[in-house]
C-alpha cells in the first residue's frame, strides 16, 4: 500500500474515530478535504492535513476526505472549484483553503487557529 493511500485510510479512520464527538462542540475542528482521485496533490494534502491536525489539534479534530471523482455531484453542491480544497465547517465561520497545505503558517493563520493557552 502506498503511503498516500495509507494516509487516506488514516484520515478516514481519524474521521471515523472522532465521529462521536458532538458536532460544534467547543474546541473540535471539523474539516472536509475535497480531492479528485489519487493525484500527488491530493495525497500531499491528505498527508499534510493529518500531520498538521495531529500536531496542533490532537484529539480535537475530525477529518472527512471527499473524492470528487467518486462523488462528482458534490463539487457543485459544495462550491468546489480548486483541488485540493479544505473546508473547515466548525467552528464557525466556515473557512476555505485551497492548495496542498504545504505551508503550516498559512494553514494556521488562514484557519484563525489560536494555540491553546498552556
Amino acid at each position: 500500500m502506498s503511503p498516500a493511500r495509507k494516509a487516506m485510510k488514516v484520515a478516514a479512520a481519524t474521521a471515523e474515530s472522532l465521529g462521536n464527538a458532538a458536532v460544534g462542540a467547543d474546541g473540535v475542528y471539523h474539516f472536509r478535504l475535497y480531492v479528485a482521485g489519487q493525484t500527488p496533490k491530493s495525497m500531499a494534502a491528505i498527508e499534510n492535513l493529518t500531520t498538521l491536525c495531529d500536531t496542533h489539534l490532537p484529539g480535537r479534530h475530525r477529518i472527512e476526505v471527499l473524492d470528487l471523482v467518486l462523488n462528482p455531484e458534490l463539487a457543485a453542491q459544495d462550491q468546489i472549484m480548486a483541488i485540493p480544497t479544505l473546508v473547515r465547517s466548525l467552528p464557525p465561520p466556515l473557512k476555505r483553503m485551497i492548495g496542498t497545505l504545504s505551508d503550516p503558517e498559512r494553514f494556521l493563520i488562514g484557519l484563525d487557529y489560536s494555540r491553546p493557552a498552556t
Partner: protein
Amino acid sequence: MTIHTKTTAESLSKAPSGIAGLDEITFGGLPTGRPTLIAGAAGCGKTLFGLTFLVKGATVYDEPGVLMSFEERAGDLIANVSSLGYDLPRLIAEDKLIIDYVRVERSEIEQSGEYDLEGLFVRLGYAIDKIGAKRVVLDTLESLFSGLGDGPVLRAELRRLFQWLKDRGVSAVITAERGSEGQLTRHGLEEYVSDCVIALDNRVDEQITTRRLRVLKYRGSAHGTNEYPFLIDAGGISVLPVTSAGLSHSISDEVVSSGIPGIDAMLGIGGYYKGSSILLSGPSGTGKTTFGSRFVNAACVAGQRAIYFSFEESPEQIVRNMQSVGLDLGAHVKNGLLRFESARPSLFGLEMHLVLMIRQIDEFAPSVVVVDPISAFRGSESEIHATLLRLVDYLKVKGITVVFNNLVNGEQNDKNEQSLSSLMDVWIGLHDLEANGERNRGLFVLKARGMSHSNQIREYQLGPDGVTLIEPYIGQHGVLTGSARIVQEAQEEAAAQERRDEVNRRQREFGEKRKSAERQIAETREALAREEAELLALDTVDQRREEILAAGRFAAATRRGART
C-alpha cells in the same frame, strides 16, 4: 492571412446560435465542438448572448447546454431573462439546461500550497454528462482572476480547460470583459480561444445608444467582417446583417400605382415599378403625407397590405386628417390591410428604428411601405444613408415598393438629399411656387429610373377629391400657377369667346349673302319665265291671225264665183 475557400466553409460543422442575423454573418453559426470567445464591455449583452445560445440550442436545435456562471446566481439569471420569454426553470426541469453558479469570493479563499482547478473540470464534466450537453457557456471566466490571482497556475489551468472543452467536443461560448485600450480582453483570454472571436460593443452617439457586434476572427470559415448593429429587446438578441442583401435582388416589371392618376400619367409606365424606392421631397405643407396616404390607399383598395411608418404624426391624426382629402384610411386599418407604426424619431437610435421596421415588415408582409418622413431621423449623414441603404436593400429583396417622404427646407436641395438620390429609383419633387403674392404647389419628376417621364412642372391642388394635377399653363416667365393661371385661363377664355363670336358673325353674314343671292336668282328665273310665257302667248296670237286670214281669203274666192 487565411484564405477562405468554399470547401472549408462547408466542411466546418457549425452550431446555429439561434440569434437572428448572427448565423447569417457566420454562415451557419458558431464552430461546433470548439470554444468561441465573446468579448465586450459591461452591459453589452454578453451573458444574454450566451444564454440565448443555450436556450435556442435546447429548444430549437435539440442540443442541451450547461451554463457555468461565475457572476450571477441561477435565480438572478432566471429572473433576468424571464422577460424575454426564456423559461429557464422549465428547461432545467426537462434536463435541457443546467445552471451552475460558481462562487468566487476572494475573501473566502485562503491559499496554502499548490492547487489546480480540477474541481471546476469535475463540475463541468458532471453537468455535461448528466444531460448530454452539447453546448457550454462560461460566464465570465475572468472572475477567476480576481478570485485566485493572475498566476501561472491559473493560466495553465485555463489552457487545459480550453483543450479539455475541445476534447469533450462541446460548442463552448466563453465571455470575457473588454480590456482597456488596444486589448480585446482584460486578461488576454483570446490567447487561449482562437477559433472564433466575437466582439460586442456599446456606443453612445448623441445620447442614443447603439450596440454593435463584429466577428473578429473565425478560423476555417468565411464570415461577414463588418460591424453589425444588434438589438436587445423583448424578442431577445437580433443582429442586423442587412447589408448582406447586396444588389443581387430580382426585379419586377409589375407596375404599382402611385395612388394619384396625374402622377401615374407623368410616369412612362403608368406608375412605379414594383419593388422600387420612391423619394418624395418637399418643404412643409406640400402634402407629402397626403401623397403617402394616397399611395397606401391605392394598395389597400387593390386588396394589398401596407404599412405606414409615421415619425411625426399619430395614426389617429393621420386617419382624421386624410378624411379632408377624401381618404378613409380607418376602414383599411379596420379590415387589417393597413398598419400604422408611429414612433418619435428620438425614441431610439437609427438601428433600433431599422430593426423595429424590419420586424414589422417581416411580420405583416406588406406590398407597399411608406416612411414619413426620413428627415426626422437623427444621426450623421453617413449613418442615415447606411440605415436607409439597408432598408432599401431589404425591401427590394422582398419586392416591396416604398415611398420615402423627405422634408426639405426651401427650394434648395441640401446635400443630404443629393446623397439620398442614389438610393432612389424615382424622385418626385414637391415645391412651393411663390408668385403674385400667393403660394401654390407644384410637382415634377426629378428622376425615374427605367422609364420615360414627363418633364413638366405641374401644379396640383389638395382638395376633397384628393390630389388633382392641373393642366399646365406656361407663360412667358414659366409655369403659371394659382390666380395667375386663373387670369390666364380667363383671358384665354375671353379670346376664345371673341373668336367664336367672329366666326358666328361671319357665318351669319354669309348666310344672308347666300339668301340674297338665292333671292336674286329666283327673281331672274321668274322674269325669264314670264318672258317665255309672253313669247308663247305672242306666238299663239300670230298663228290664229294666220288662220283667220287664210279663212278670209277662201271666203273671198268663193264669192268671186269660183264655183264649179
